[in-house]
């Protein structure tokens, strides 16, 4: 330990250790042993360090130039194979590398400069307790007394109380103004909106094919026939009227509530359902929105009939009323009663009996 230190210098060799007896701008040197660096003793080493630092700053400038060249010269679609990284975008890698190195070198140079060439002798400054001087405290107290006296704050009780009342009410408008963050349509309450979806008796079920779902075509073309779904099959599905909704907002809102999955299992494997005869020949329809916090959930295992949420691993047994078998969800997955219409297409027989998606305060009141 001790022997690793180079030359041990006595503090006195480095300058004054007496506090307060230093030149302006200089702090007293800490009274601890200090080891000098190579650059302190060997002028050659010092010059080497100087060159090192200057080289870093110089290279930094070079990399800035390279950055500009890369920006201009490399097409944004070019890809390049780089070992370790793989096939990557040439522009991003070149720009990041040149920019990064140029900036890094400024920092490395400055630190090297500080470490090798600036003094590395530790100095001392005195601290003072944070508490104010007695005189300051007295002055503050005197000012407070004067303010109290002059304003009459203690005397005018009624003013004092009304002021406190007024100040207490002051933030109310600021809060009230937030009310129209949601411009509530007449007669709609959050609980009702959360409890209703597009599904109703006779609504034709169509497969979800993304944005185009339900856009063009008749029910006959778009709908699903029971024989289309084999045992073990899974279909992400939507109500046919989803395509009639205006794009963006209402469409996405309805997708977030009305999307379902259809699964087919051997009718003998269905142990229970949420309602008598809610399946159609082993085809079951369940909400696709998790009852935990609302992730879409379609991770269906055909062997176990378990439906697993990829967000928080809630698991529902679709062969057993959609009950929760694992994970944080507290409520079973709502089932949609289905049947077929006159054209032999799968349709909903009724709206969802339970609100879909995560629980909410008024859920059981609606």
């Amino acid at each position, binding site marked *: 330990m001790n022997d690793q230190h180079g030359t041990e*210098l006595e503090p006195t*060799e480095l*300058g004054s250790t007496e506090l307060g007896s230093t030149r*302006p*701008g*200089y*702090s007293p040197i800490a009274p601890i*042993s200090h080891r000098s660096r190579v650059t302190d003793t060997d002028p050659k080493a010092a010059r080497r360090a100087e060159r090192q630092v200057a080289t870093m700053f110089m290279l930094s400038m070079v990399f800035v130039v390279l950055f500009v060249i890369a920006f201009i010269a490399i097409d*944004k679609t070019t890809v390049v194979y780089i070992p370790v990284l793989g096939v990557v975008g040439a*522009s*991003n890698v070149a720009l*990041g*590398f040149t920019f*990064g190195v140029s*900036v*890094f*070198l*400024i*920092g*490395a140079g*400055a*630190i090297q*400069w500080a470490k090798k060439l600036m*003094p*590395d002798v*530790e*100095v*001392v*400054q005195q601290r003072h307790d944070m508490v104010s001087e007695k005189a300051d405290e007295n002055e503050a107290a005197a000012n407070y007394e004067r303010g109290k006296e002059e304003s009459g704050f203690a005397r005018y009780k009624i003013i004092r109380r009304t002021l406190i009342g007024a100040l207490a009410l002051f933030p109310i408008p600021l809060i009230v103004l*937030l009310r129209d963050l*949601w411009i509530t349509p007449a007669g709609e309450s959050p*609980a009702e*909106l959360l409890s209703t979806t597009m599904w109703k008796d006779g609504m034709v079920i169509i497969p*979800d094919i993304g*944005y185009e779902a339900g856009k063009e075509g008749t029910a006959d073309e778009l709908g699903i026939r029971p024989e289309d779904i084999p045992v073990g099959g899974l279909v992400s599905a939507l109500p046919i009227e989803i395509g009639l909704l205006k794009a*963006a907002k209402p469409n996405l809102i309805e*997708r*977030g*509530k009305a*999307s379902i999955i259809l699964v087919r299992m051997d009718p003998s494997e269905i142990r229970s359902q949420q309602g008598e005869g809610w399946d159609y020949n082993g085809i079951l329809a369940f909400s696709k*929105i998790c009852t*935990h*916090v*609302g*992730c879409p*959930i379609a*991770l269906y295992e055909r062997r176990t009939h378990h439906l697993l949420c*990829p*967000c*928080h*691993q809630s698991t529902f047994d679709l062969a057993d009323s959609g009950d929760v078998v694992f994970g*944080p969800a507290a*409520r079973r997955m709502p089932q949609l009663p289905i049947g077929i219409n006159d054209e032999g297409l799968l349709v909903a027989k009724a709206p969802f009996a339970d609100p879909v998606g*995560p*629980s*909410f*305060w*008024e859920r*059981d*009141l609606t």
Partner: protein
Amino acid sequence: MSNPTVNTNSLGDSETKAGDPIEKIGGATATYVDQRLGSNRFLGRNLGKVFPDHWSFMLGEIALYSFIVVLLTGTYLTLFYNPSMAEVIYDGSYVPLKGVHMSDAYASTLNISFDVRGGLLIRQMHHWAALIFVAAVAVHMFRVFFTGAFRKPREFNWIVGVALTALALGAGFTGYSLPDDLLSGTGLQIIRGILQSIPLVGTWAAFLVFGGEFPGDDIIPRLYSAHILLIPGLILALITVHLMMVWTQKHTQFPGPGRTNDNVVGYPLLPVYMAKAGGFFFVVFGIIALIGGLVTINPIWIFGPYTPDQVTAGTQPDWYIGWLDGALRLMPNWESVIFGFTFSWNVLIPSVIIPGILFTGLALYPFLEAWATGDKREHNLLDRPRNAPVRTGIGVMAIVFYGILWIGGGNDIVATAFDLSINSLSWTLRIMLIIAPPIAFVITKRICLGLQRRDRDKLLHGYESGRVLRLPHGEFIEVHLPLNEKELAVISGKEDLRVLPAPAKADPDGVKNKMYPVQNLRHKLSVFFLGDNIEKPSQAEIDAGQAHAAHGAELEAPLHEYELLDQDPVGHGGVLHHPGMAKTNQEQIDQRQ
């Protein structure tokens, strides 16, 4: 041996300036500004301000610098990003999404990634820097906690730091949501579920935040104004307060030679600290730019646009929200309906109550500890974590708790990576969440106390040199040497606090002590905090012990003689040591002479 020059010159020293036109202009400018602001008074007092040097003091700097990078790159991103949920049909240069309907927010983020030259670099730098920012904030907080830097007079700054941590999480999450890709949208869907679970006002809160039903088309613009204006504004303001307090109170320092509670030993701001800290800014900036160029983060083009009926396996938030997601995953499925009202404990507890308790506990900790230990002194010297075993234990306990939640947040990835069942992994984590933190507390506390005992031995007997002697009568001893200056100062820098006295139930006159329960609780807490501490020896004992060891070291133990004896040398470990042995050693050697 030349005297190293300390500090450069202060402003106003005309001698060195003479002749250099740049310095002349600089001096004139300084005077001009000074006449209007009195700035030289500040500069004169502060350019030589001393900062102690330790790598762990740079953690806060990493946070500050990565935040500056986040601000710079974020400003650039606002020039190209469009916070709108209006539907557009993508027609940019990323082929696998051509013709797909998506929000303008997502399309403009794709545009930044593929059609703006350097846009992807800036996006990736922004995201990496954000991850680093929160990480640095967290580790900085650990450093402050474990070294007791939050103690008087720095409690306010600790609270500011806790607020900054919360804001950092908020900044991160709002930013994560802006690209409106499938991952971020799913995150928002979860937030909606959490808001909805709040008793009484939950549904309204969710509807107000989202401007109606989820997802609506208000949320992205709202998050945007929070992300680029409200939250960074607050962070900037608090960072300013944070740094001003550090400036006023001067930085804490570890115990060491020449360092006391009343001084600060280190390097002056100008030039050393400025060069090091300024240089470190560029180093952090450079590393972030390098990583932004070389490593992909959040490839939103893979995830696709957000649609509320689509999802991807491996849906995860960024690392700093991972623990909350993990809490949601590990929570048992409790829910109760009371008088028809639904209480979703399975959502409320992990996402509202647990973080609420953790952050409140963090903010109040300095006051709790000060009350329990009765410590009212100012502390400018840091504690070594071992010297506050209970605090260190509590910190490690919290980290273990957090870490298990964090693993829980990635349990599906962990399960596939290590070929585990996600169900048994979840159960293991649930059980560990309850039993591992207390175990971690006990083990940490024991380790700390063990280290304290070793420190005491070192003070009393010097350190074990590893030189083993065999005495003529066959006993092995190990030569002890005095500690070097630094180690002695570090170890003897320990401060011992006394356990608060047990209160009396009644005073001598038989008057009942009304405050007894509170005082007794306080007494018990102080026993809990301090009761097991190993007392530091008195200064006289330390001096005697070190002198003794020094004396022993002077004896040139003739190792070579023992080597000649051709005996098996005994290894460094496993050497028995008991007080008085050094004396025996000396007697033996005396005898031989």
